């Protein structure tokens, strides 16, 4: 501001407290002051007139200065890849604005398959979203955007006050909150399990028992033989029983772990099956070492004998390979036999070892043999879309629940037409519909299910039924999915 400070000082303090004198003004202005003073009726009028003259003089003489210490913001490096069309960028932003997080992630994944970049115009909104604290999929979005935003995105991040892509460099594990650590670790286990384990080991001892338990649970993602030594150490040395139990749980879910091998050895020769007489069992005495192996001595069910309970615990912790040897047949046959005539009936639950080992084939054979609701709920999620087509289950009014495990958003799986139809019939029996479910179903449903959806809408006597709106919503999301498939394609111009 070039305006003489005396004008501002007088204006701030008031003419009652400070007399205004036109000192230090350019000659042209100084000369005008007595003239204005002569015309005005009081001091304030003179001041206002003179002030407006001075401001007009200053503004009408404005000149942009040459600045020595000012540098323009640097330029972003050139891109080597080409851009998707603007329409694709608009679609991503609209998915973000509509909070369609499943579709947005799907679009990112599809885009990441192409050798192209998101047009720069649309990056700020998407980058901001990827770093939002409450975004549940921020780490995956960050990984995908790092590829899709190119050099411009990398250059833009610091300009927007956001951390750079390589989170390991910029995000400090020691200062991250517990939720952030969990998300970070889960994400890292998906992409680089060894690095995840290394990160977990850095500072685990200083966490509270509950936090340790939560973090160790993250190892379930990408669990491998390399984790066994660490988990065994935790299972024996940690000061919290809860954490020890969590480590043992993970060890139990590794078919080739020492713990599972011990279970197999303990159970071997203790079970006998005869076609005519059914199951018989040899007694196994409970020893103090079994407590270390996480085996209980007394059953909470009074109808179950304790000695059989001990054996049942072991039977529910051994993999399919054990039963293959036991029955001396193929895995498929073993699974079928075990499902049809399980030991320790009615207490034995075949779903427990299958979900524990996440054994897809075992789940498939079991469901082929017996597609009961209990099995469908817990095992269907393990199957591939092709395998699901073979499972025949009928929708009923009582069974409308869709477990989250049925959806595999990371793999972009499309279900077969038979399974899609069965799921649709199943969910249409439900009185409750959520937007999230519609979005997830739209991503998984077979494209041909659209006809069935339209048919349902047209058939309804009562158009305002919730199921009609739900079907319309699924149809809309399916249309958006089709649009994503068209736009995020290397051949689309």
């Amino acid at each position: 501001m070039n305006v003489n400070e005396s004008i501002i000082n007088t204006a701030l303090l008031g003419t009652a407290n400070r007399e205004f004198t036109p000192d230090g003004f350019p000659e042209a202005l100084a000369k005008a002051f007595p003239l204005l003073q002569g015309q005005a009726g009081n001091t304030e009028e003179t001041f206002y007139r003179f002030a407006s003259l001075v401001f007009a003089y200053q503004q009408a003489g404005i000149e942009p200065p040459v600045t020595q210490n000012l540098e323009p913001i640097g330029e972003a490096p050139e891109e080597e890849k080409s851009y998707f069309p603007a329409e694709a960028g608009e679609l991503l932003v609209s998915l973000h604005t509509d909070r369609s997080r499943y579709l947005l992630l799907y679009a990112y994944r599809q885009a990441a398959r192409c050798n192209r970049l998101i047009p720069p115009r649309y990056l700020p909104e998407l980058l901001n979203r990827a770093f939002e604290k409450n975004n549940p999929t921020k780490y995956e979005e960050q990984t995908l955007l790092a590829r899709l935003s190119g050099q411009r995105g990398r250059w833009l991040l610091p300009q927007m006050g956001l951390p750079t892509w390589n989170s390991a460099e910029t995000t400090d594990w020691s200062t991250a909150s517990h939720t952030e650590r969990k998300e970070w670790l889960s994400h890292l286990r998906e992409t680089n399990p060894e690095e995840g384990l290394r990160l977990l080991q850095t500072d685990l001892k200083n966490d509270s028992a509950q936090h340790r338990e939560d973090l160790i649970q993250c190892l379930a993602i990408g669990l491998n033989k390399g984790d066994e030594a660490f988990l065994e150490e935790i299972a024996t040395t940690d000061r919290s029983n809860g954490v020890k139990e969590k480590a043992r749980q993970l060890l139990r879910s590794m078919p080739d772990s020492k713990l599972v091998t011990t279970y197999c050895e303990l159970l071997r020769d203790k079970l006998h099956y005869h076609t005519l007489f059914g199951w018989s069992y040899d007694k196994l005495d409970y020893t103090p070492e079994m407590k270390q192996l996480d085996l209980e001595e007394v059953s909470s069910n009074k109808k179950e004998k304790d000695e059989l309970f001990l054996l049942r615990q072991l039977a529910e912790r051994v993999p399919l390979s054990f039963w293959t040897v036991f029955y001396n047949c193929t895995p498929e046959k073993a699974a079928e036999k075990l499902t049809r005539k399980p030991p320790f009936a009615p207490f034995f639950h075949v779903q427990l070892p299958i979900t524990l080992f996440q054994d897809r084939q075992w789940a498939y054979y079991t469901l082929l043999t017996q597609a009961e609701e209990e099995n469908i709920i817990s095992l269907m999620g393990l199957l591939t879309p092709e395998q699901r087509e073979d499972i025949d289950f009928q929708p009923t009014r009582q069974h409308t629940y869709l477990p989250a495990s049925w959806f595999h958003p990371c793999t972009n799986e499309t279900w077969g037409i038979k399974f899609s139809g069965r799921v649709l019939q199943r969910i249409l029996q439900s009185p409750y519909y959520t937007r999230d479910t519609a979005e997830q179903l739209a991503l998984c449903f077979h494209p041909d299910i659209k006809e069935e959806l339209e048919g349902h809408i047209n058939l309804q006597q009562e158009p305002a039924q919730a199921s009609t709106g739900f079907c319309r919503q699924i149809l809309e999301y399916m249309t958006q999915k089709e649009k994503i498939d068209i736009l995020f394609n290397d051949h689309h111009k």
Partner: protein
Amino acid sequence: MPLVNLTEEQIVQLAPDAASVKAGKGLAAKAKWVLLEFSERAIWGHCQGSGKVPYQTVIDIHHIAFKCSCPSRKFPCKHGLGLLLLYAAHPDFFVQAEEPEWVNAWLAKREEKAEKQEQKARQEAPVDEAAQAKRQAARHQKVLHGIEDLQMWLTDLLRNGFLHIPEQAYSLFDDMARRMVDAQAPGLALRLKNLQEMNYLNESWKYELTNRLSKIYLLSEAYKHLEQQPADWQHEIRTLIGYPQAKEEILARESFADYWLVLHKRSRKVNDLNTCAYWLYGQQTERFALYMSFTAPGAMPEQTLVPGSIYEGELCFYQGVRPIRVLFKSCRLSEMSFLPVFCKNLQEAAGRYRQILQDNPFATEIPLLIERVRLAQQEEQFFLMDSTGRAMPICIEESIRPDLLSITGGKAFAVFLLAGATTWRLHSIWYSSTYYFWKDER
């Protein structure tokens, strides 16, 4: 099939709020409507809402107006917007049919109302010039009395000093602004109200406030000596005070036919009235123009211009000193494209700014176009820098900055800005000959 010559952007302008736009776009799908029909006068449809009976929505397509049986208090409702958007995009979805009773009744009622109004207008007595002059003189006296009070208030304000104004700004100017409304000087009232919205957290508030208050004083003083001013200045001062200029008089003035590029659009809601300001630039005339549109909620604006588009039309400028405000005599969307003539550097732009302010010190927002500038930053302040190394501090919305950097990647771009007394505000840019703008709505 009757044509609704409206773009999606124009239809969106009819919406009462952003939520209605979103909901309306959601309903612009065939699946949402169980009936879609049209006649020569109207389009109508049945939209299945949450109730048993579908909502009946009708639109008068000749004098865009809506009616819907839904209970929404918004006007137009999402169904009306959805139906119009659907018709604009896919007229082929609509089937020609006879107007049903409910459509016919509503259209008949509208026609009856319009006829009554027309009759009333025909019966209106011719202008009584003597009475008009008497009313003008009475208003002039009213304004003078108002100005007397205003000057006394300004004098008191200055006597006590402006130091404590920031903490009282919220209510300090209200009473005097209301007094100016009573005195039929709405221009002065608006200037006082604007003082309330100033950013008093900014270090420059004292300069801005002193400048604005002294300008208000100068304006009131100028009005007191209106008769001694040249004709142009008389118009200018009367307009600044808040006297309207008759539309017929403006349209009777010389018109400027040109291709007009819409540089920027600013929308504000003032007392439930949608106020839109469009800054335009003429290809041949190389003149800036400001077109203002005021519409009640639900009413169709006379012109809805889309930023970045070019319109072929004749404009008539208001009377005044270096007038910028205009009315359209004719206007139609053109398919041609051109780039405006930009100032080569900041020095040239500053020269234009100086010239305008020398001619009219009351000018508040001076439109400027500058090419080959880059963004620079020093602490929290942003600057526009040209290739000669000169820089001007600018004001840039926080939401615009990442977009601008994202588009330009730090390279040079051309800019449209509005230069005020203390700040130059960036509004739209051209990068690689492509125009980019940001919504300016409140």
